[in-house]
């Protein structure tokens, strides 16, 4: 059958695909779907990776250059604003698909390269100057000779893309292509053939655990909410993602917003909720815009709202723009924020599944947890359990960044070792320096060091080495990073983000920061009293950390001392060097630097002498100068102003 107009497409997708379980059997339907999904094309099609990360890398300029080119040439080419495939290093990424041929991806296409690239490729020639990065293999299309496939690319070969399967591939704001790729099938099947209790059962059986950091079984939570008696229930999707160093949730929402809506619908149905909130950070403007557009389409198709597809099920999905506060990641705090109050956590029990939003049963699930749900419902429990390890099923999506060759959003099956993540997917370290550690997100404060690099991504295994998986912000560090400075940075973050409800967290993080600052700062007067204070502070750190983690209410407070404790555990030497020798081996703690003047190189120009804010430099014009160490505050001004490289750092 041919699909001509938009109305036809819609009717075809609703009647022949969503409502007809025999959709897979008919070859004609499959063919139509492949056209709608953009797998087959009548005219050339160009996708530009336009996630936030792509835009920052200059994708907008590339997009406009392509648009101008196509208008100039009057070419019959479809241009699509796509999502992000995950390899941020190669952005802006431009994908080109010619009729009958496999789709090609070109990396780092700047706006001035557009002309020559399109001149070649639209005439069926592979550009010599810019070879494609990879091609998407497809049995129904002709393969390009001599070009590796996506799976062969080192960044992707170790990955298993289940949640990200459509990211960067489909048009994110086209409900048609999402349905054609198998989207919303699971939801429609679920409401027509499963009871809510069955859905909870399936999710429990699948072993899906919360991906936000806690690792709590999702099915258990749902069941508790389903069993709670109330006339009103709510489903909340936590898309706050405020770990500094993670943007995987934002990236997958931008690249495939429809799946989040589908998952929220299934979750709402499972607990009997008629309203689902997607609580997303206000700054994620592109993700919000795409979600709003996707939601409008879903509403238009009758997939959300009142009496969905004549099933009697009513579910409304609402997007809530959250104001910024790290503590909003905590479910009770998040609920308070939706209610229009300060985002302060409350004690559990009562759990939100019993008394959440406006005292009604509420489940709060992380974006990534939810993305798994339609897949489990569609492919079954057994299928889901084949991926991952014995205790942790499925995959984990994370942001990979730091001092690596490759970086971006990555999805690996549970059980992948961190060594593979760093050296295969990440392509090894960027600099010549050695690997030092991986930070697993600020909320866990745990580190993977050289010794534990063979640990696998698995909730249990990480617990055994005293860490936690966290939400998925993996920052890889080399020896050029000072761990004490990093612990201070984390503590400063927690001090700033503490909501102030529990005194141990509010005052304790401030005190911890003070101790850390004493360790990384040169004292104003280096007398014995201050030295004693510095030692005393460090002696107290462990017991202080113990009090904070034991007596704080929420996980933010409980985990705030982890970064310091883990630094003490894994990098004690570095800590000691800061405290006793007052040395920073990575040379990052600027306050601990000792400046001196090379008498041979100094010309006596008096530039440093004039600029020194504390008159610590003595000397007369045309004769080498000297820095009085007792007076020097280590501001580095002399180093900056010296034109003869005569000021050195020890």
């Amino acid at each position: 059958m041919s699909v001509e107009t938009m109305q036809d497409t819609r009717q075809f997708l609703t009647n022949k695909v969503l409502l007809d379980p025999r959709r897979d059997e008919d070859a004609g339907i499959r063919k139509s779907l492949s056209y709608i999904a953009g797998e087959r094309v009548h005219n050339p099609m160009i996708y530009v990776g336009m996630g936030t990360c792509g835009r920052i890398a200059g994708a907008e300029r590339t997009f406009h250059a392509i648009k101008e080119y196509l208008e100039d040439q009057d070419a019959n080419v479809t241009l699509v604003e796509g999502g992000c495939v995950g390899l941020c290093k190669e952005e802006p990424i431009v994908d080109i698909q010619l009729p009958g041929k496999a789709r090609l991806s070109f990396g780092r296409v700047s706006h001035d390269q557009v002309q020559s690239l399109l001149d070649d490729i639209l005439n069926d020639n592979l550009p010599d100057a810019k070879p494609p990065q990879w091609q998407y293999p497809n049995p129904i299309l002709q393969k390009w000779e001599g070009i590796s496939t996506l799976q062969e690319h080192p960044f992707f070969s170790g990955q298993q893309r289940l949640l990200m399967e459509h990211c960067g591939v489909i048009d994110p704001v086209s409900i048609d292509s999402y349905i054609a790729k198998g989207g919303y099938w699971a939801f429609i099947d679920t409401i027509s053939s499963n009871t809510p209790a069955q859905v909870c059962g399936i999710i429990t059986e699948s072993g899906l655990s919360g991906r936000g950091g806690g690792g709590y079984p999702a099915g258990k939570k749902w069941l508790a909410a389903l069993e709670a008696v109330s006339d009103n229930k709510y489903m909340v999707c936590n898309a706050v993602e405020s770990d500094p160093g993670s943007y995987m949730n934002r990236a997958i929402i931008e690249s495939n917003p429809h799946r989040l809506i589908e998952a929220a619908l299934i979750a709402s149905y499972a607990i009997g909720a008629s309203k689902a909130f997607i609580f997303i950070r206000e700054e994620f403007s592109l993700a919000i815009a795409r979600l709003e557009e996707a939601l409008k389409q879903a509403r238009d198709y009758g997939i959300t709202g009142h009496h969905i597809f004549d099933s009697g099920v009513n579910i409304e999905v609402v997007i809530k723009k959250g104001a910024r506060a790290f503590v909003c990641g905590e479910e009770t705090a998040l609920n308070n924020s939706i209610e229009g109050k300060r985002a302060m956590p409350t004690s559990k029990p009562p759990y939100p599944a019993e008394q959440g939003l406006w005292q009604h049963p509420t489940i709060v699930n992380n974006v990534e947890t939810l993305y798994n749900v339609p897949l489990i419902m569609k492919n079954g429990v057994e299928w889901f359990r084949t991926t991952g390890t014995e205790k942790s099923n499925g995959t984990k999506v994370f942001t990979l960044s730091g001092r690596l060759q490759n970086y971006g959003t990555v999805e690996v099956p549970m059980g992948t070792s961190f060594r593979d993540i760093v050296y295969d997917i990440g392509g090894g370290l960027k600099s010549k320096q050695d690997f030092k550690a991986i930070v697993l997100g600020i909320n866990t404060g745990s580190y993977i060091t050289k010794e534990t690099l063979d640990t696998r991504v698995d909730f249990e295994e990480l617990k055994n080495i005293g860490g936690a998986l966290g939400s998925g912000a993996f920052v890889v560090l080399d020896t050029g990073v000072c761990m004490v400075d990093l612990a201070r940075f984390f503590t400063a973050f927690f001090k700033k983000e503490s909501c102030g409800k529990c005194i141990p967290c509010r005052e304790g993080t401030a005190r911890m920061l003070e101790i850390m600052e004493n360790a990384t700062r040169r004292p104003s007067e280096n007398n014995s009293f201050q030295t004693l204070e510095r030692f005393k502070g460090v002696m107290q750190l462990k017991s202080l950390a113990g009090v904070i983690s034991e007596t704080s209410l929420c996980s933010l407070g409980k985990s705030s001392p982890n970064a310091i404790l883990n630094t003490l555990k894994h990098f004690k030497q570095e800590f000691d060097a800061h405290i006793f020798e007052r040395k920073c081996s990575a040379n990052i703690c600027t306050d601990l630097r000792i400046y001196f003047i090379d008498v041979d190189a100094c010309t006596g120009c008096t530039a440093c002498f004039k600029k020194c804010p504390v008159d610590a430099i003595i000397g007369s014009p045309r004769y080498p100068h000297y820095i009085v160490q007792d007076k020097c505050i280590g501001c580095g001004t002399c180093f900056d102003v010296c034109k003869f490289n005569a000021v050195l750092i020890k």
Partner: protein
Amino acid sequence: MEHIFTHFPNGKREDLIPILQVIQDEKGFLSEETIDAVGKYLRISTNKIYGVATFYDNFRFGPVGRYHFRLCQGTACHVAGASTLQKELEKLLKVHAGETDKSGLFSLEVASCLGACGLAPLVEVNDEFYTNITLESLKELVRMIREKENETL
């Protein structure tokens, strides 16, 4: 203000944060008068509104500069040297983080993660991103802006 309130016909407590967000989007910041008006409309005391608004990082109570700098201080940016850049930027712009200078030219905000960790460190100036910045490129950037401003004067 009235046209904003019409989007929130029921005027419930849960509308407070969305209303404040819309006002800030429109006016740039939350002034005393607007907060009074919101309090009257929602029947919430202004104290409580301030309590909520000051809790969250993204509400401002004064205007931003003509050039609004947002420096990323995520983990990846921090290990790439964003702290040094912050100090330098504060010196160059003559403002502290979270402040606007007297002439209204510059303001500086420290963001927790702008989401381009691979291109760290980065700074955003009026929706334009500058990636892989160094001390030199930062100085150059501020110099260019000042030059442009002087020309238009």
